[in-house]
Structures are given as C-alpha cells and as structure tokens.
C-alpha cells in the first residue's frame, strides 16, 4: 500500500469516528445513508469496473437482503443480525443462480437478464403483499432496542470499512489482476488459461452478497422495507455514484457516494429535477470523463504533460 493511501485512510477514518459528536441528528442520517451507498457503489464497481459486467440487479439484491431479513424478523421473530446473515446468503445464492444462467452469454445478456430479474423481484414483492406488504412497505424491527442514530452510524461505518478493506485487498490480489485481464480482453484471458466464466461468476456472486448485506442493514436502519430498495431508480443512483466518482478505481465510488448523497440534500428543494441533474452529470461524465472524478483528479495531479 502506498503511504499516501495509508495517510488518506487514517485521516478519513479519524474524521469519521469523531464526526457523530459534531453532527446534528439530521446530518448523521445523511451520513448513514451515504455509507449505505458506499457499500452499494463500491461493490457494483467491483463488478462493472473490474470485470465489465453491467448488472442492473444490484439494487434488487439489496432488496433480497432487506426483505429476507425483514420478513424473518417480522414473521418468525428471528434476530435481525441472524436475519441479515441469511439475507446475505440468499442474495449470494440468487446471484450465483442468475450468473450461471446468463454469464456465459456475455455482457448484453447479463444486463438484460439482470434488468428482468429486478423486475421479477419487484413484481413478486408488490404482489405477495401478504408476506411483503407490497408497496405499503414492511415495518421491521431495528438493530437496537433503544433507537440510536450514533449506534447505527458506527455499525454502518464498521461494515463499510470492512467491505472497503476486503475489496481493496481483492483488487490488489491475483484475483483482482485476473478480473482486470477478463475486462481487458476476454478471449486473450481465456487463451492464457483463465477460466473467465468462473472469474465473472465469482465476482457476481460476491458482489450480490455484499448488496444483500447492505440492503439488510439499510432495511433495519429505516425500519421500513419497501419496493423502493430494489427499484431501478435506486439502481440508477448507485450506478451514477460509481460513474461520477470513477469506475474501475477503488476510491471513485466512495467519493461518488458522498458527493451525490450530500449534493442531493442541497438540491432536494428542486424536487423532481434532482434526478435529472444527476443523470445529466453522469451522462457528461460517462461521455467526457469515463474515469470519473477520481480520474480527473489523478490526471490533474500528474499535470497536463501526460498525454498519449
């Protein structure tokens, strides 16, 4: 690890730990939501930015995690902690199944199938309202007996940091190298003895599990699980955060999550315009700066001399 990276992490973490003692309840709430998006966008980036699989089911897997855990705790009285664990497993298994179905057919099929899958999840959730309470939303118990925003903040922070560390380790390992090779050139990778389908499947399953985890936590924080969690609108936000922050870089989606979530608090007054604004920014980024804010920043630090 580069020393600058370590310094950044240490400084960021210290700020994060003392933050709740300065922030109002409201901004603490914004921070918790941002941390949820950090988990989502980082894991989606691992999938799309490192293996080139544009999945539109990431929010759906978060929904699987949230509903599994929510329904278990509401109907069977299972502890939310155990529920979240089962949620992670369900998301991973569904991810594996879906991956087996469509990954061998290549990128476009994966995107279309995952899009279809999120729609299936949405339809099932809205229709099985005896169990999921449909669009009405399922009210779930919290993680603590006594509601505490600071408590939730630290849980979210700990999980987000843990996920971050795992992802960081992964992309700097031989697995990460393999993923990049698959992204760079699938045919060349497989001609070099890499089982490209396995690499993709592994990434898809792993990131689905993370989405399940993030969704489970999110549901128990809001204490309300609705079809909004697995919606395409949510999916767009995650995607926009990764694209704006910078796909294919570790820090990109983290930066993107905070920037967009905090920005959205400021432009909330513009109501329906704010999704449009995110969309336009994301579109401009994808078109003119595909490496996102991180790419722009790194290029700036390198100076303008470096062109090819």
């Amino acid at each position: 690890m580069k020393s600058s990276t370590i310094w950044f992490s240490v400084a960021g973490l210290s700020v994060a730990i003392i933050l709740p003692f300065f922030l109002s309840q409201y901004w603490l709430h914004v921070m918790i939501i941002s941390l949820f998006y950090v988990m989502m966008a980082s894991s989606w980036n691992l999938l799309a930015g490192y293996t080139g699989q544009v999945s539109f089911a990431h929010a759906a897997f978060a929904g699987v995690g949230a509903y599994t855990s929510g329904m278990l705790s509401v109907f069977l009285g299972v502890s939310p902690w155990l529920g979240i664990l089962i949620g992670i497993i369900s998301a991973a298994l569904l991810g594996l199944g879906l991956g087996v179905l469509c990954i061998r057919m290549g990128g476009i099929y994966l995107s279309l199938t995952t899009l279809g899958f999120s729609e299936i999840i949405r339809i099932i959730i809205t229709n099985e309202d005896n169990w999921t309470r449909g669009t009405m939303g399922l009210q779930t118990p919290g993680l603590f007996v006594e509601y505490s925003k600071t408590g939730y903040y630290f849980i979210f922070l700990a999980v987000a940091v843990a996920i971050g560390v795992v992802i960081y380790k992964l992309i700097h390992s031989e697995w990460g190298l393999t993923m990049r090779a698959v992204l760079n050139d699938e045919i060349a990778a497989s001609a070099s003895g890499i089982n490209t389908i396995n690499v993709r499947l592994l990434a898809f399953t792993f990131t689905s599990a993370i989405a399940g985890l993030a969704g489970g936590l999110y549901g128990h924080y809001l204490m309300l699980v609705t079809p909004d969690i697995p919606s395409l609108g949510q999916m767009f936000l995650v995607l926009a955060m990764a694209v704006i922050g910078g796909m294919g870089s570790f820090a990109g989606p983290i930066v993107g999550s905070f920037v967009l979530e905090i920005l959205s608090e400021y432009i909330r007054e513009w109501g329906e315009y704010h999704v449009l604004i995110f969309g336009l920014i994301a579109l401009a980024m994808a078109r003119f700066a595909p490496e996102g804010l991180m790419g722009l920043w790194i290029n700036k630090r390198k100076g303008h001399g470096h062109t090819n």
Partner: protein
Amino acid sequence: MGILIEGTQITKSFGGVTAVNGVDFHVLQGEIVGLIGPNGAGKTTLFNLITGLFSPDTGEITFAGKTLKGLKPFEICRLGIARTFQIVRPFLKMTCLENVLIGLIGKEGQTSRPQAKIRKARNIMQITGLAHLETRMAKDITLIEKKRLEVARALATGPKLILLDEVMAGLNLSEIQQASELIKKIRNDFNVTILWIEHVMGAIMKTSDRVIVMDQGKKIMEGKPDAVVADQRVIEAYLGQSDA
C-alpha cells in the same frame, strides 16, 4: 519423437463459406512446424479450432493422446497449448509484467503469495527481451514489443505446444533474425513444440523442420521446406493470389 498433436478431417464453415475443409495435420514432439498459405487460406481459423475458440463441424483434434472435443479455451491452454494472436491482444490497460503474470496465473491458479510468480515472470521477460518494459502499460509499447509480450505471456502458461500467429510481420531483417533465434531458443531451452503461421518466407524456411501449406481451406502440401518451395501447387497458390 511421438505425435504431440493430431487433427483428422477438420472442417469448419461459417454461413456458406468453408474456412477449413477436411484438413489432416500432425505435429511431432519438439518439432518446429511452419504453416503457410495465402490470405484466407484458413490458417488462423485452424489455430482458433485448435485452441477451442471455435469447435470444428466435423473431425477431431487430439493433443498428447487426449481429445480436445468440447474443451473450453482455458482448459485447452491448461493442457499445454498456448498461442499468440495475428491481431495482437495484450491486456492493454495492464503493465507488461502483469500481462505475463496472467499467463502464470492461468497455469498455477490464484495464490495469495505473488512473489514467486513475479520472479518467474521477470525471468520470462528477460528471455524474451522485455525486461526494460516491466512497468509500462501494454497500450504504450510498440507493435513489435506487443507481439513479443504475447509470446512471453504464452510462454508463462507453461505450454508443451505454442501456436505463433505472424509474430514477424513488420520486423526488419535483423529483428527477424533475432526472432528466429528466440523461436529456436524456446524450443531448445523450454522444450516447447512450435506451430507457427508466417508470411516471412525466408525465416519460416530457415527455421522450420517441416512446413504445411494451406489454400482455400485445404491442405495442399506438406514436407521439408526446400521440397515445399519447389512444389508446383504451392507456387500456383501464391501466384493465384497475386493475380487477384
């Protein structure tokens, strides 16, 4: 010397075009075999069939006594067949060292201790003359270097047979000389059998033990280099092409 790879009656069509038509071939252990023929003769398609990128419509390929039928490219590679591509395909957004590491990962699988692999990769880069490019991005090196990088990556997979597809295109005379040396070195030092496609006639005639000639999907001739150049059918195939 036993037979390392053997194909019988290999045929492959795309739509209405038969790219490879009933080809028999074999390569012996430790041989250097040249594969020549005019453009569109089906040479690269044959490579793609061997490495599992396509599967033949009819016919079967066996490698070291095992059939390759139904195997995926990565499985074929792990059996010991490595290749380079006519239109180069290095991993552009990775460093040259990382490119070679992928070959080693393909052979040995992912481990958590990459040090040993890095040592091996450096060694291979030394041999292929790429040592100075270790940290350069593959997209930033010259075409010739990219071709060498592909050879290095192929070598890293620890092959028994290596398929080289026009690695000498665009080289000048002394570079061709170097490349020929490298090919011999690969065979002698690494004990790797070589099947290669080349248009640089001088090099292929001088370096190959045996030459196979293809035209319009069919094998029209095979034999010692000097016998091949003297053959009427081979001359016609090439002349026919220049007429067109």
